Structures are given as C-alpha cells and as structure tokens.
C-alpha cells in the first residue's frame, strides 16, 4: 500500500497514544470495530467543566491508515466542545490523510469512535 506522507508521519509518530482511567471524571471512552475485521479503535476524550475537550488519547489495532486516522482525530478534537467534535466528518479525515479508496472505512471508523466517546461521556454525565 502506498500511503501519503501524512499517514506515514502519523503512523511513525502517533500523537496522544495512551489511556485515561475509564472512571475518571470527565472521561468518555469509545471503542469501535472488531478484531475479526482487522481494526479496533479506542478513543478517549477528557472534557473540562465548560464542556471543552481538553485532552484525548487513543489506542488502535489496525492497519497504518487506521492508526493514522485515530491519531489525527485526537489532535482535531482537542480544544473543541463535545458538540463541535461531533461535526467532524469522515470525509475530512480521509481528505486530510489522502487515504486511498480501499482505506476509507478507516476514516469512517474514526468518526464512529468520536461519536462513541461523546455518547459515553454524555451518558456518564447525565446529558
């Protein structure tokens, strides 16, 4: 697979790798994908009192573009409110990383991961 420079950069220097405690205050966790499909993404957001995502972390099992897509969204969600984060579209992720057509599902998965993390945050914080 020939990847763009941006994919390779995120793959080789992934941003914000790691985990928050799932029960930590303000943390929302999204886990999407399945091992059988070859991709699992875990995205966590840490939301402050004013509803702004102040930190994000990820871990991904998957191909280079799955890792790059999730690394990219940890950068993008930071500084956004949870509702702004929900407006990130897979097409923007795919475009930014110049993903080849067979890898578009990686960007869809990354969008799903944001939605899942926000939903988990909202559920825990009674919104």
């Amino acid at each position, binding site marked *: *697979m020939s990847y763009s420079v941006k994919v390779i950069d995120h793959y080789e220097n992934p941003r914000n790798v790691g985990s928050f405690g799932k029960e930590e205050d303000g943390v929302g966790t999204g886990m999407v994908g399945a091992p*059988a499909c070859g991709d699992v993404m875990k995205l966590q957001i840490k939301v402050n009192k004013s509803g702004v995502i102040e930190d994000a972390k990820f871990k991904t099992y998957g191909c280079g573009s799955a890792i790059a897509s999730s690394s990219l969204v940890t950068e993008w969600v930071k500084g956004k409110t949870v509702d702004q984060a929900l407006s990130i579209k897979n097409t923007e992720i795919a475009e930014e990383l110049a993903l080849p057509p067979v890898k578009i599902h990686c960007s869809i998965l990354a969008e799903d991961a944001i939605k899942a993390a926000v939903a988990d945050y909202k559920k825990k914080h009674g919104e």
Partner: protein
Amino acid sequence: MKLPIYLDYSATTPVDPRVAEKMIPYLVEKFGNPASRSHSFGWEADAAVEQAREQVAALVNADPKEIIWTSGATESNNLAIKGAAHFYAGTKGKHIITVKTEHKAVLDTVREMERQGFEATYLDVQENGLLDLEAFKAAIRPDTVLASVMFVNNEVGVIQPIAELGEICREKGIVFHVDAAQATGKVDIDLQQLKVDLMSFSAHKTYGPKGIGALYVRRKPRIRLEAQMHGGGHERGFRSGTLATHQIVGMGEAFRLAKEEMAEENKRIGALRDKLLKGLQDIEATYVNGDLTHRVAHNLNISFAYVEGESMIMAIKDLAVSSGSACTSASLEPSYVLRALGRDDELAHSSIRFSIGRFTTEEEIDYAIKLLHAKVGKLRELSPLWEMVQEGVDLSTVQWAAH
C-alpha cells in the same frame, strides 16, 4: 548488509546469476525458433529446449517426453484440470476433489469447471494444515474424475501426503494432479515412485525466470488432455505457441542447479529458519501457523497476536515479507488459508510469512529478529486489544460492534 532484506522467496526468487548467464545468448545470438526445421538457427534452439526438458525431468525423475512447456504454474494448473476433466468426463464422470487451501490458480479453475457443469468438493484441512486421508477417501464418488492437491502450501509451507494420495487415486482410477510450484528444489520429487498423473511446475519459485513453467503429463499409464491453447501444434499438440527458448533454457539451468544443490541448501536454510523461529518464540503470544514437521525448510508463518499484519509490515519495512492480513490484499478478507486452518480472524489478520532463500544470510536473520522484537513491542503499546488482555479481559467474551 543491504536494506531492505528480502524474505519473500515464496512470492518469487531472484534469477540466479548463473541462470541469467545461460539465458542471455538465446536472446541475442541464438535467437532461432525451435520449430524451424530447415536451418541451424532452429536446430540450435531446439537442442537447447530439449536439453532443458531433460534438466527439468531429471529434477523430478521423469521422462523428458513427459514435460510440456507452459507459461507458468497457473497455466499448467489450468491445462491439467480443464484438460483432464474434459477428456475423461464422458467415461468417468463430472466430480472433482480439491482442497480449501489450494492456490487460487487451482481453486478458481475448479470454480470454472463448476460453471461448466462439473461438481466439486473442497476439502477442509486439519488444524496443522494437512489433509486428512480418511476425509479424502470419504469424498471420493463413483463419478470422481480428478483430484487436485498441492505439494507444498504457499502460505504455511506444509507438505501434503502426496505419495499416499497417489495410491488412493490410482486404485480408484482418478486422475491425480499436483501443483508443485512451491515444491521444486525444496522436497524430493520422484515421479517414478509417486503415483501422480499431472504435476505443475514454475521456474520463478526456484531461481529461474518468470513467465515459464511446465506440466508433467504421465505416459505410463498414459494421461490424455484436451488442449486449451490451439495453434501450430507445438508440444505434441498439448500447448501451441512458439517456445520461449531463453526462458526455457533458464528454467532448465535453474532446475539443474536445484538438483545439484538442494540437499546442502535446504540444510543451511533450515538452520536459518530454526534460528528465526527460536528468536521470535520468546515474544509473548506468538503462534506458528501450520505443521512444523511436515513443512519445507524455507517457510515460517507466525501470528503476532494483537498486532495487525499490515501495520506490522509498515513497522518492519526493512524486511520484505508478506501477511495474511486483509489490509495487504485487495479483497479486505484475511487469508483464506489461515482460516481453513481454523485460525480465528484476528490471528489471520496478525500473520506474517517469512520465506528464506538461497541468498539469505545469518546476519540478515539476526537483524530481523532484533527488529521484530522492537516493533512488536511498540505496536502492542498502541494496541487496545493488548491492553485489554493485560487487564485480564477475555477478548472472546467482548461484544464487538462489527462494521
């Protein structure tokens, strides 16, 4: 040491420089058409083709008259399966037996036969990748016309029990075809002993050029085929088309070298493979795919659990290897061979095939071991599955949101 290191000899091998040297004169000076009977250009090319035929036959202990030139193992498989099935369908029947772990060149050909009105049985293999003889016997029907089983599997390197299968087929009057593309120079093949009727060969897996192969067609008892390529009646009518003298000379020389050197070479390569295996086995949660005893010396297929194959290949870009991961294929499906071995999809996605060859050095294997240790660790740090397993979660109990 030069990077990247080539560890994908099962995909293709470089042409041995000794082979290339033999080929070149047949491109430039000795360019005659072997079918030209009226002048020395033709006679010279014909002599070279016949010498190569003897060299190919010698490696597998066959009569040179039993060797038909083709463009490669894919064409040989097509000619064998279509040619024999059609020829014998009228007398014997329209049922074909093959195995789920065969190369696509066999599986897709058998699918085509199904479209043409034949019936097919695709046998499962055992967890070690080997065919169960009892299951094979049980699949035989009165109308079974042909069975096709590969000698050596291209992904996991296991060696099927060809001698035993040959006995069964001969007793039942079934034409037995064997795809030996991955076997030449790796296992001893004696067609005086093996009751194989048709056998496919490729040059480029055995240090010869791409674009040339051969089909063995047994003479005693005689096997008949319907030609698939019509024209000038070359190769006794089995396969028309002007012979590619330089390619044929290359295949002959490559097979001659294989016969001469394989015993020593397989010892050396086996030692390197065992070193690689030993060096990787101390990485936690690694699984060898396929039987280790009934296996060619060149192949090691390992799943590094919780690390996806394509990202692994990106991480070890200094090593040219292949993976059963869906992400390295166009189909987005993980390896059908590993699935047929009963490996779950996650381990199929996590598999890496190392294939070692004539020009692999010990220094390269040492480098590979060190690199893999570092990168598996790094990717597992990135893997949510690894994290869950470390926390004691049983992944099989997790409800995944499939996409």
